[in-house]
């Protein structure tokens, strides 16, 4: 994953989801994810309902299934360890082909895969319809401390720059025959990472000088996070609350 993807995450459009204020979408996202995670893993039908909610939202945002599918694939490696669970789980075992798998482990793998995927799909719908600066402003509106959102803003801004510097350093090392395969050959890489830290720090100082030069006196001007109308809230929360209701019923029953 790289910063090159940060802006590929946002898809230009003028759907109703694009128009909603960021903090409203973040609250909606949180409700959906909580609903998904709270649903007991065996209630497959409820997961289907959650999926339906997300699909409807994606359609409303004019996002193609191929786009969402592509994003899900990128997130797939991080869920891969779920496949270990059937092998190491305890309790009852079931024989599948030549393998003896734990039933609890299979359910656990299912839980991670379905919940992880649904949560990711919901996140994709939000990040595809909300540019990063708006996202950070939305977080600020949701009482995330200003220090955190300001640091996050600089991180997002300079991610590609720093990644680019590291990439160029690696290319330069490779161009001089550097192909480390063993731990003791990795020193040059670590040293270049140290150099990158120094350069990043010095850039941070230059950025601060540039900020001072334009009159900075301690508070970054807060980007106006657009206010939300009651209609916005209704529009954003209608489906997520259905998902939450389904999850609640599944838990209680």
């Amino acid at each position, binding site marked *: 994953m790289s910063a090159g993807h940060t*802006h590929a995450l946002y898809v230009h459009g003028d759907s109703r989801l694009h128009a909603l204020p960021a903090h409203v979408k973040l609250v909606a996202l949180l409700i959906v994810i909580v609903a998904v995670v709270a649903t007991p893993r065996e209630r497959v039908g409820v997961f289907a309902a959650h999926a339906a909610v997300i699909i409807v939202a994606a359609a409303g945002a004019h996002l193609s299934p191929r786009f969402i599918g592509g994003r899900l694939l990128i997130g797939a490696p991080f869920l891969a360890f779920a496949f270990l669970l059937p092998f190491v789980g305890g309790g009852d075992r079931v024989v599948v082909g030549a393998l003896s798998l734990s039933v609890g482990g299979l359910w656990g793998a299912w839980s991670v895969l379905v919940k992880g995927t649904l949560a990711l799909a919901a996140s994709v719908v939000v990040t595809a319809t909300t540019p*990063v600066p708006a996202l950070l402003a939305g977080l600020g509106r949701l009482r995330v401390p200003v220090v955190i959102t300001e640091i996050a*803003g600089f991180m997002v*801004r300079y991610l590609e720059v720093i990644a680019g510097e590291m990439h160029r350093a690696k290319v330069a090392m490779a161009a001089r025959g550097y192909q480390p395969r063993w731990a003791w050959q990795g020193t040059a890489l670590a040293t270049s990472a140290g150099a990158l830290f120094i350069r990043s720090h010095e*850039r941070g100082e*230059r950025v601060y000088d*540039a900020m001072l030069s*334009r009159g900075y006196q301690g508070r970054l001007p807060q980007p106006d996070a657009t206010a939300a109308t009651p209609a916005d809230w209704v529009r954003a929360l209608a489906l997520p609350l259905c998902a939450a209701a389904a999850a609640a019923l599944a838990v209680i029953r």
Partner: protein
Amino acid sequence: MSAPALEVRGLEYTYPDGTQVLRGTDFHIHPGERVALLGPNGAGKTTLVLHLNGILTPDAGDVTVAGLAVQPRTVKEIRRRVGIVFQDPDDQLFMTTVRQDVAFGPANYGVTGEELDRRVLDALTDVGMAGVVDRPPHHLSLGERRRVAVATVLAMNPEILVLDEPSSNMDPASRRELADVLTGLEITLLMITHDLPYALELCPRAMIMNHGRIVADGPTAALLGNRELMSANRLELPLGFDPSLARPERLPAPRGRPFSSK
């Protein structure tokens, strides 16, 4: 004779590690002048620039901008009057969209709402970049980022524009676009550059800085035509470039002191 837009007197500065970089820098610039600052690497040019808006404080000497002395209590107003465009636009464009970057300066001076939006768009229009207002800076090419960096400073309505190596690493077309932008602005200009043809084209007057001092000051064509002066300061004309062939009618009359060397 109007008051100088910028006056630097006897500036001395030594870095914390002991290197003395400025050894008595003296010059002044009048409103409307366009001056190039030339000199070898390590001459102290960038250090000098950081003194012009109070980021660095000199060990001796002073800086005055349009009659206002640079001091801790005047620094905020000074930074509005002196617009510095640093060498690396990535250091200067630190917000997540172009709009936020250009708005940053005026917002710090209390400009808000519609007036702020207008300033942002005017500044971007002046540099020909109004179309990228909502894009993230790292989606722009280097030339575009340079121009946006100029806009971030123009939005504060400065009195003097200071540019540090504005044309370095730019392809010829971008260089041309930036030159057109700069000639189109009605502003006092101080440009640090190694790009001697650029200096000749945009600045009727030039100063050469070496070893922490101004060693020459006069019409750009005359300085560039003086071979001994040039080589004494590690300067060299590009192959085939003849400063006497540059057409002076495009440039306003120079107002610096007659050619002299110290």
